């Protein structure tokens, strides 16, 4: 038991989310492995983003348990935590389907906001920072260095001082991932990171996500429609349809699963029986 708990970063048990009479997610259970990329796929309206919103605290689940375990063995019950606490303490960060950057702030500033809590402490909750405490200046330099590192990784170092709002679409996607990484998450939730990217950009994104997994050991939870991205990089795939899990397994298993094919493509009537 303890052995499996150590390998599992996020344990979703019987997660149900109802909006009035609408059941968006129904009794969903799955485990996301530590240091792996887990993809959640499914047709439009399958409830993927709802699952994300439950995990990151933007929705309070109707039923179910979301247990996050750090490598240190520390447990967090995410369904009981508020959104910003999940990001700050449980260290789960996310990106959004429709990019949510701070458009009027520069790329660098975006990455510094992600390090807010750390910098807040270093600035003595503003009091010490106001008088120019050397410890804060040091922390700020470190924060800028971390931002510089991630900007370099996403190839936007030259655009560091440009407002995020003027960056190209693909660059904004990458910046949002970098911003989420600057908050030093143990679990990174990406909501359709490849949406709107051309094949070359999608390929680069794959390499970037694999690098994140391999170098930082951050576990990744991924919602994606882009099958090439899903099949190439995910270690495990969970398929949702109408709020229910219809399949789970390795990309190869999922590819051949008749239920998954049926959910995506539809089937002839007689084949269902």
């Amino acid at each position, binding site marked *: 038991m303890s052995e499996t708990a150590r390998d599992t970063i996020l344990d979703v048990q019987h997660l149900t989310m109802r909006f009035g009479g609408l059941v968006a997610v129904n009794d969903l259970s799955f485990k996301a492995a530590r240091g792996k990329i887990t993809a959640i796929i499914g047709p439009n309206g399958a409830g993927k983003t709802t699952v994300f919103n439950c995990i*990151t605290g*933007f929705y309070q689940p109707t039923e179910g348990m979301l247990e996050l375990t750090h490598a240190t063995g520390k447990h967090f019950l995410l369904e009981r935590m508020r*959104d*910003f*606490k*999940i*990001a*700050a303490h449980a260290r789960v*960060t*996310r990106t*959004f389907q429709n990019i*949510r*950057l*701070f*458009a*009027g*702030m*520069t790329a*660098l*500033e975006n990455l*510094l*906001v*992600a*390090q*807010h*809590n750390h*910098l*807040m402490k270093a*600035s003595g909750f*503003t009091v010490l*920072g*106001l008088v120019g405490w050397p410890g804060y200046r040091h922390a*700020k330099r470190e924060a*800028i260095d971390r931002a*510089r590192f991630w900007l370099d990784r996403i190839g936007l*170092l030259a655009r*560091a*001082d*440009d*407002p995020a*709002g*003027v960056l190209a679409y693909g660059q904004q996607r990458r910046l949002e991932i970098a*911003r*989420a990484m600057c*908050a030093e998450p143990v679990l990174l939730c990406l909501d359709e990171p490849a949406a709107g990217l051309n094949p070359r950009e999608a390929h680069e994104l794959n390499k970037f996500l694999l690098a994140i997994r391999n170098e930082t050991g951050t576990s990744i939870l991924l919602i994606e429609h882009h099958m090439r991205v899903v099949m190439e990089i995910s270690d495990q795939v969970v398929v949702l349809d109408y709020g229910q899990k219809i399949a789970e397994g390795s990309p190869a298993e999922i590819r051949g699963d008749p239920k998954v094919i049926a959910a995506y493509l539809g089937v002839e009537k007689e084949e269902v029986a």
Partner: protein
Amino acid sequence: MLVPNDPKSAERVSRLDVGGAIKDAAVATVVAFGLFSLMLGLLTQPGPSGQLTISERPKLLIVSLIVVFVGRFLVAIFTRSLRVPLISRLISPKLSTSFRQLERFAAPALLGFALVVPVLFYSNRYLLDLAILVLTYTMLAWGLNIVVGLAGLLDLGYVAFYAVGAYSYALLAKNFGLSFWVCLPLAGILASFWGIMLGFPVLRLRGDYLAIVTLAFGEIIRIVITNWQDFTGGPNGISGIPRPSFFGIPFTSDPEGFAALFHLEFTPTHRVVFLYYLILALALITCAVTIRLRQLPIGRAWEALREDEIACRSLGVNTTNTKLTAFATGAMFAGFAGSFFATRQGFISPESFVFMESALVLAIVVLGGMGSQLGVAVAALVMLGGFELFRNFEQFRMLIFGAAMVGIMVWRPRGLVATRTPSVYLEKKKDIPAAIVEEARQ
């Protein structure tokens, strides 16, 4: 933009759209007739026996309609043939960028000027009083800029904190005999406490809803002050508030007074000059703290909150605390300004804290441009200076004021200085046009 040497555009200029212009002018004349027929065409006067009589003024009506027709026709010819809005032709858009470049020199110049104002206008009591007023509003606007400009929380009840500061000082100084320097921080603390009190119920609100609640809050404070007769003196206000002393030395003509101690001839101007430097120092502290806060994580969090609250939460920013600190910090500066106001006036009453004051301070912030400290200072100077300038034309004051507002909103819809300076940079500080910042708020 139109290039005059371009043959195509030259052709466009030559082909005057007279028909369209006549149509525009006709529409304008009909509208003007609707308005003027009653306003100008009929005059009501008390008749010989006291009853109202109506006299017709057809000549005036016809003349004004002709003026409207010709005026609109000319404007239409001008704009239609050049295909450029009139006002942007009159005022070059480049002025805005040059204003920004000017800032580097203008800010120190303005500061230097502010420092020598009492020397230059020592004998002009009226101008000194006006300068104190301008600085008070500059300070208020800088304080409000934290809430509205940085955190993006539209606050229409800012004057409430100004009132709290003023009454805090008045009551503490009168009832407990505390000195100004003790009361000043206390007034700030009390005002920021009320800022947090306002902050809690409005945490979930944004935009118009927030504006309505803050507006109501401002009125509540004023009405409570008016009706709580035992405590605040009600509509009669509080008089005999202790005047400021020069660190304990009063500005009086006694042998103990400021003039006698410094071997000067006694004049009431000493106190005015002292008050001037006091409010200048307070305003500069407000400005310096704001600039500093912007470079600290809290200031960045305020701006991030203005841009996208959900993204903030997803990054672990405690939006509750962030909003409350914005309200509290803004309110604190209003509290300081309030206690200065009380000590300067020596008398306060609820009438000084009406909604118009909130609106005026907000107008200064909006006109100045929400990004720039200098823009706000210039806007305060122009607004209050303008008010004074047109004091003799009492009736037309609001008319000119309104026209100026419309002009600025057409010419510079985002305020005088409409760029945002990044709080931190790697290579080069590049100003961000307000259009990008604004877009994010939609």
